């Protein structure tokens, strides 16, 4: 008697495919390092990063106790950078999760059911997409309190329409595929068809966009902080750049160091998105 | 025909992809005014042969051997500039997909006129006038009005006619048609094949017809080349080849065709299957068909593969087992 082997868990195959992509592995390692810094901040720099600890304008390398130097008020740049990581990652990932959830739900319903439901939801998407997103963001944050949950909510509110549009168009084309027709013919319910048949096929562009959205959210938070609309009680990469703006000629490192952190993180997130897309697609993964 | 050079003579053509040989040591000839059909299933190398002749192979493919003598030159040795003057003017090609072969943003008249202005140097008005004549030649009704239509306004059959008009615009000596009717309905297919044959006769073109359909081969070809996994396995005139195939693969294809059941239904006759798939040919040192062949003997799988041997009536076959025993008479 032949024994039927149990289906190989899918995530192992995806993981193997992902591990074969060097750009993805490097990006993921970098992001894990950044996350570790964010989690370890209270241990690495137990003191408040807003506190003055040394003389102002120490350049990086001048004093081994402050490897990245100090700012105009004598605050440790390294401590600010590490604590800022917490804010950036928290805002980035929370806003992305909120925005993707909202976008997936609305986009999937609009694209799958079509008709009047679709027309109404498309109008809703358009209402949110008409004003320039950053202007809308500033207005939302200005109306509410400039605190972290408000910033997260506001960024999610301006970014979900992007996801909803992608999901809607994916669902519209996928719902016409023969395998969806076959699922209907086999008597599957709407929920099962949406979640199990169509959604996995619609995810790759969403995953790519989601990782870009984390990056966008980090940039938006930085921009808000740069403009002084961030949470005033917390150090973030944006507020550090904003603080160093006046001193760009004399102490450029104050803006450049957090700027570099943003660039690297955003780049890593983009590369990760590409790598995930390739790994999640069985056909592309098999061709590697 | 001794002494006269045919219009096209392919000799030992080999096309390779990294890790795979698409066409191996292929030789065939096309005379002026003759229809030669290359028949085979997907993966047989028939389309790669066509693309190699046009020197339009995918970037990763290489022509690693052989020659193709056409009008006194070796097409495989021409540089890109000389080849560009051959394409469209002396050798034209039409493809399977009439829906995507035309540019959707230009009128069909403009697309026919384009090739005339490029190769014949005609002016705008002259090219348009000639385009209308060509649309009439491919039997598009009311050509003076249709000339300003866009591709999306035409049916699949009409688009394929426009493709044919573009192909014959400069009076090519050779027309390569790669599955020209596969995407078309059967009544439209009959119209397009009829049209191609009429043009072949009127313009005394050579026609290299690439198809998977044995019925088309039998109805329209003067000579048939059967390809399997990159090799020519059999060649001959269609009547004899389809009546009494010498290669087990040709015989298998005929047996697998429901048409061959001669009006018998599934209750009376079972279709003869060719077991397995063409992918079994990969890495086979001997005859590529041996893994699927009922008649295979041990020596079939030993290198080198059986050579093509000439038989009576201008037939050739690369199988010592079946052809040698004289089994199918």
């Amino acid at each position, binding site marked *: 008697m032949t024994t*039927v*082997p*149990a*289906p190989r868990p*899918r995530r192992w195959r995806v993981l193997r495919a992902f591990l074969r992509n060097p750009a993805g592995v490097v990006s993921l390692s970098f992001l894990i390092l950044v996350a570790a810094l964010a989690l370890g901040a209270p241990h690495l720099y137990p003191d408040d990063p807003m506190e003055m600890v040394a003389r102002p304008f120490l350049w990086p390398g001048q004093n081994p106790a402050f490897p990245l130097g100090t700012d105009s008020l004598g605050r440790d740049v390294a401590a600010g950078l590490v604590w800022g990581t917490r804010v950036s990652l928290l805002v980035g990932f929370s806003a992305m999760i909120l925005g993707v959830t909202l976008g997936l739900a609305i986009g999937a319903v609009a694209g799958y059911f079509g008709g009047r439901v679709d027309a109404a939801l498309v109008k809703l998407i358009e209402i949110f997409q008409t004003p320039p997103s950053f202007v809308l963001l500033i207005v939302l944050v200005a109306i509410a309190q400039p605190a972290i949950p408000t910033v997260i909510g506001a960024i999610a509110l301006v970014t979900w329409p992007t996801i909803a549009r992608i999901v809607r168009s994916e669902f519209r084309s996928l719902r016409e*595929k*023969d*395998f969806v*027709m*076959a*699922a209907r*013919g*086999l*008597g*599957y*319910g709407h929920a*099962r068809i949406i979640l199990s048949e169509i959604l*996995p*096929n619609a995810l790759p562009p969403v995953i790519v966009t989601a990782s870009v959205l984390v990056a966008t959210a980090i940039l938006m938070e930085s921009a808000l902080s740069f403009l002084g609309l961030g949470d005033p009680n917390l150090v973030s990469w944006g507020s550090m750049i904003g603080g160093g703006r006046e001193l760009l000629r004399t102490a450029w490192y104050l803006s450049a160091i957090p700027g570099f952190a943003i660039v690297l993180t955003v780049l890593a997130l983009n590369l990760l998105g590409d790598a995930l897309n390739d790994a999640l697609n*069985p*056909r592309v993964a*098999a061709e590697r | 025909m001794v002494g006269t050079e045919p219009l096209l003579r392919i000799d030992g053509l080999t096309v390779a992809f990294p890790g795979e040989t698409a066409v191996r040591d292929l030789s065939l000839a096309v005379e002026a005014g003759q229809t030669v059909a290359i028949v085979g*299933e*997907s993966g047989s190398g028939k389309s790669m042969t066509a693309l190699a002749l046009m020197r339009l192979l995918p970037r990763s493919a290489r022509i690693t051997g052989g020659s193709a003598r056409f009008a006194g030159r070796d097409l495989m040795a021409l540089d890109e500039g000389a080849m560009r003057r051959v394409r469209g003017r002396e050798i034209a090609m039409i493809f399977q997909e009439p829906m995507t072969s035309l540019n959707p943003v230009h009128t069909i008249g403009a697309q026919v006129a384009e090739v005339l202005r490029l190769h014949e140097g005609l002016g705008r008005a002259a090219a348009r006038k000639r385009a209308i004549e060509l649309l009439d030649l491919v039997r598009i009704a009311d050509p003076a009005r249709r000339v300003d239509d866009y591709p999306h306004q035409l049916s699949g*059959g009409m688009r394929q006619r426009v493709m044919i008009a573009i192909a014959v615009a400069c009076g090519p000596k050779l027309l390569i048609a790669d599955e020209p009717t596969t995407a078309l*309905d*059967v*009544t*439209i*297919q*009959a119209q397009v094949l*009829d049209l191609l*044959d009429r043009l072949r006769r009127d313009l005394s073109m050579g026609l290299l017809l690439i198809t*998977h*359909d*044995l*019925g*088309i*081969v*039998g*109805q*329209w070809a003067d000579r048939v080349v059967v390809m399997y996994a990159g090799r020519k396995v059999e060649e001959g005139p269609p*009547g004899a080849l*389809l009546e009494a195939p010498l290669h087990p693969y040709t015989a*298998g294809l005929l*047996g*697998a*065709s*429901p*048409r061959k*059941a001669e*009006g*018998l*239904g*599934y209750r009376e006759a*079972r*279709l003869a*299957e060719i077991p397995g798939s*063409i992918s079994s040919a990969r890495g086979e040192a001997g005859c590529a068909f041996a893994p*699927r062949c009922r008649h295979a003997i041990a020596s079939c799988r030993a290198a080198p593969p059986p050579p093509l041997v000439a038989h009576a009536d201008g037939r050739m076959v690369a199988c010592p087992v079946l052809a040698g025993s004289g089994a199918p008479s």
Partner: protein
Amino acid sequence: MSLLELRGLAVHYATARGTLHAVDGVDLDIARGETVGLVGESGCGKSTLGKALLGLAPVTAGAVRFDGVDLTALGARARAPFRRRMQMIFQDPFGSLNPRHTIGAILDAPLKVHGLGDRAARRARVAALIAQVGLPPDAVARYPHEFSGGQRQRIGIARALALEPDLIVCDEPVSALDLSIQAQILNLLVDLKRDLGLAYLFISHDLGVVRYFADRVLVMYLGRIVESAPAATLWRRPMHPYTRALIAAVPDPARRRQAAPLAGDLPSPQDVPTGCRFHPRCPFATELCRTTEPPPRTLDDGHDVACHHAETVAGA
């Protein structure tokens, strides 16, 4: 009583350019264990007809009776038990399988949705289905892209068999396959029919395949059935000019370099000709054909034709 009866079935779509009459009043009967062939050119409505009877295309008018029950009158819940008994095999072996699911998951899902057996029983059933269609046992853990076109079509067949249907709608099941693979799949369908007593509605544009595979054949043109007869009768004595042209258009070595039997294109189903729909392309058309649509008539035993001049055509 027939297993399936269609009466006056119509599927109309509202489009920007007017109503599209995809299926326009079709009567059709399929007996238990019978294979009915449906032939016609693209755009004639044959695929839409197949989908409509499975509830996958909206029925505008008419009845779909399965075992005597009109399915068009039923709600989704009441229809569910009938869904199991009618299944479909699709043309495109690449598009009809979800690329993100393993073969095991594809075959297990219908069993799970319909609550057929516990996990162990379902696993055994999936293994049996895979064996039944001639795939290796390890197929269960693999993905569709790892298989050739012919093997994927076997997977599609296994999925259609999962719920033990009485009727399978085969929509061009071998059109995308190479000839050598076609015969394998057709033989498999014949075996399954014999072993399981299946009835097929076999939709195809390939007359050679239909002639071999069908007990009875219906010819469809622009949303209507123009002729229906037992397969052997239809080829021996076609009585509709369109059927004659279709048969004559099949490439045949016996007809060397023969002129095309039929001129012109299929008209758009949005712009159906008056009278007989075929009259603009018909060599037998008269004034009567231009004005009056011919009703279907039964001429010989089981041979129906919708043509004013069927007797003339048959004698020509």
